[in-house]
């Protein structure tokens, strides 16, 4: 009786499970197996060729580091090509990601040709990838230090904003008196970009780092409050009714029904807040705080060291993207019960 009723559902679950697990390796044609490893290896060889061709015009030190980098990429790609023969999950990953990596390497080729090769773009504003790579290596200590300072400031401000936003969002979403008085404040203060407060913040606060953290918190607070409040107040009335007939008191209704029901919306707020926090962080570091990646970019630009500017931009891309990924991973863990969530 149970089986007949649940048959198709179980099959779906089964399928979802097996899709994640290694399947029996299918018989692959020679062309398909080439497609697995060739793109990255070939693109690396093209990179090396282009760099060798261009490098006659560049200073030797810059050339060497980039050569070492490209040879290592080639080495790794060959090792992976050999390893994937007896490793189906690696093969599937390579077939999936190979074209993306190959395209990224070809972008490097294009960049190198446009800058160092044909000199279509003016120096020193547009250094070649080899130059940027060299800056990355030469200034690694300062870059690491800047990233570390940015991370501390970002996490401090973000945590502060999230806590404040969750508290105000829950109160506004749940209680109508709080909504009556809170919403006007939210509507007037919220839409002001946090960066617009910078002049005021620098006057009021004794420490630039402290005021930057407060500004980041403010930037995060608005979307988190907004989305939390709307998530809480849109909790399906029938969930609350059911909980009441089960004997739930107010605490249970808020913390075990309304907040879980609002979580999908809360995570959208956390995501939007994170984007706002990146922006505020970089602007605050550029104009006030004397450390961090934003400061580093402004400082390098002041010395016209554009290799360092690009290096810092690359670090920022990796840094922000990693933090975003962490947030999405957390969300996927927390919202396993939800169907059809967007993948990051």
């Amino acid at each position, binding site marked *: *009786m*149970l089986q007949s*009723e*649940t048959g198709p*559902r179980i099959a*779906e*679950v089964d399928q979802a499970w097996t899709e994640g697990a290694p399947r029996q390796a299918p018989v692959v044609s020679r062309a398909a197996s080439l497609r697995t490893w060739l793109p990255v290896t070939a693109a690396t060889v093209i990179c090396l060729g282009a760099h060798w061709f261009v490098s006659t015009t560049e200073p030797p030190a810059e050339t060497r580091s980039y050569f070492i980098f490209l040879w290592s990429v080639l080495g790794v790609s060959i090792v992976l090509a050999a390893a994937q023969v007896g490793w189906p999950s690696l093969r599937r990953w390579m077939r999936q990601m190979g074209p993306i990596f190959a395209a990224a390497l070809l972008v490097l080729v294009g960049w190198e040709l446009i800058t160092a090769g044909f000199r279509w773009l003016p120096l020193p504003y547009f250094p070649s990838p080899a130059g940027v790579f060299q800056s990355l290596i030469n200034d690694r200590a300062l870059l690491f230090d800047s990233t570390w300072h940015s991370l501390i400031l970002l996490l401090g401000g973000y945590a502060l904003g999230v806590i404040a936003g969750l508290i105000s969002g829950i109160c506004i979403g749940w209680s109508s008196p709080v909504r009556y008085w809170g919403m006007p404040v939210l509507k007037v203060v919220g839409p002001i970009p946090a960066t617009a407060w910078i002049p005021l913040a620098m006057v009021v606060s004794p420490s630039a780092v402290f005021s930057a953290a407060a500004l980041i918190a403010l930037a995060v607070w608005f979307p988190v409050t907004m989305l939390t409040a709307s998530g809480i107040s849109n909790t*399906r009335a*029938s*969930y609350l*009714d*059911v*909980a*009441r*007939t*089960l*004997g*739930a*008191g107010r605490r*249970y209704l808020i913390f*075990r*029904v309304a907040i*879980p*029901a609002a*979580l999908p919306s809360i995570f959208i707020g956390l995501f939007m807040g994170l984007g706002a926090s990146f922006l505020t962080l970089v602007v605050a570091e550029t104009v006030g705080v004397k450390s961090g990646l934003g400061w580093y970019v402004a400082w390098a630009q002041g010395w016209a060291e554009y290799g360092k500017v690009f290096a810092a931009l690359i670090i920022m891309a990796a840094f922000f993207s990693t933090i975003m990924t962490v947030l999405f991973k957390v969300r996927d863990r927390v919202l*396993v*019960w*939800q*169907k059809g969530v967007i993948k990051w």
Partner: protein
Amino acid sequence: MVAESAMEASSLRIREVRKSFPAPDDPATRRLALDGISLSLAAGELVSLVGPSGCGKSTLLRLIAGLDSPDSGELMVGAESIVGPNAERGLVFQDPNLFPWLTVRRNIEAGLAARHVLHENRHEVDEFMRLVGLESFADAYPHHLSGGMAQRVALARALINHPKVLLLDEPLGALDAFTRMRMQDEVLRLWQARRTTMLLVTHDIDEAIYMSDRIVIMTQRPGRIERTIPVALRRPRDRSSADFLQLRGEILELLHFAGNAVAI
């Protein structure tokens, strides 16, 4: 003697209940949804409410659950009047309304957790999962369940609080015909095992005859009780017996749905 008084405590009395709502098109006026409803259920009785949609069946159930309060009249369970929602009156909707963020086990535990008695009564959770045949789905999330399974979880969730009265608002309305008949037997089995007083809203006459001790027929605008029909058939009932079909014919006649409708 103790058992006797415990049974009495789960009787349900509704006297002259009226309830009105603001009219949707004109908020200044109020529209009467229930007009002088009086109804008594003996402890352990299973009564069906049948009537056209909009006759206030669900409104009445919400009043009994304590989710709304009447304009006038009195609702009592045993000797106590109903003032608000309470774990002693369980409610199951047509939509199972399982909490999607909780697994099957946690959904069933919800009633105990809400009353802060989960720790002492944890053993009951397994018992109730067995009762509704869902042991192997303990860690599944609601979106993996079929409609019938989800409704069984909803029943177990409502029953784990040992309610004196169980209110069922078209609980089987969204299920296909076969699942529905199976679930009717399942609800009857739970009812016979626990002797809970049950009030079942349905618009399926067969379901009402098959399941209940009495059928209360309501009319609409405003909702009134038109008639109460006792069902004296012996249990387990046979859906195709002559007595069953005769009673069915009488009720359809009463609701003006009999086959010999006058052609216009």
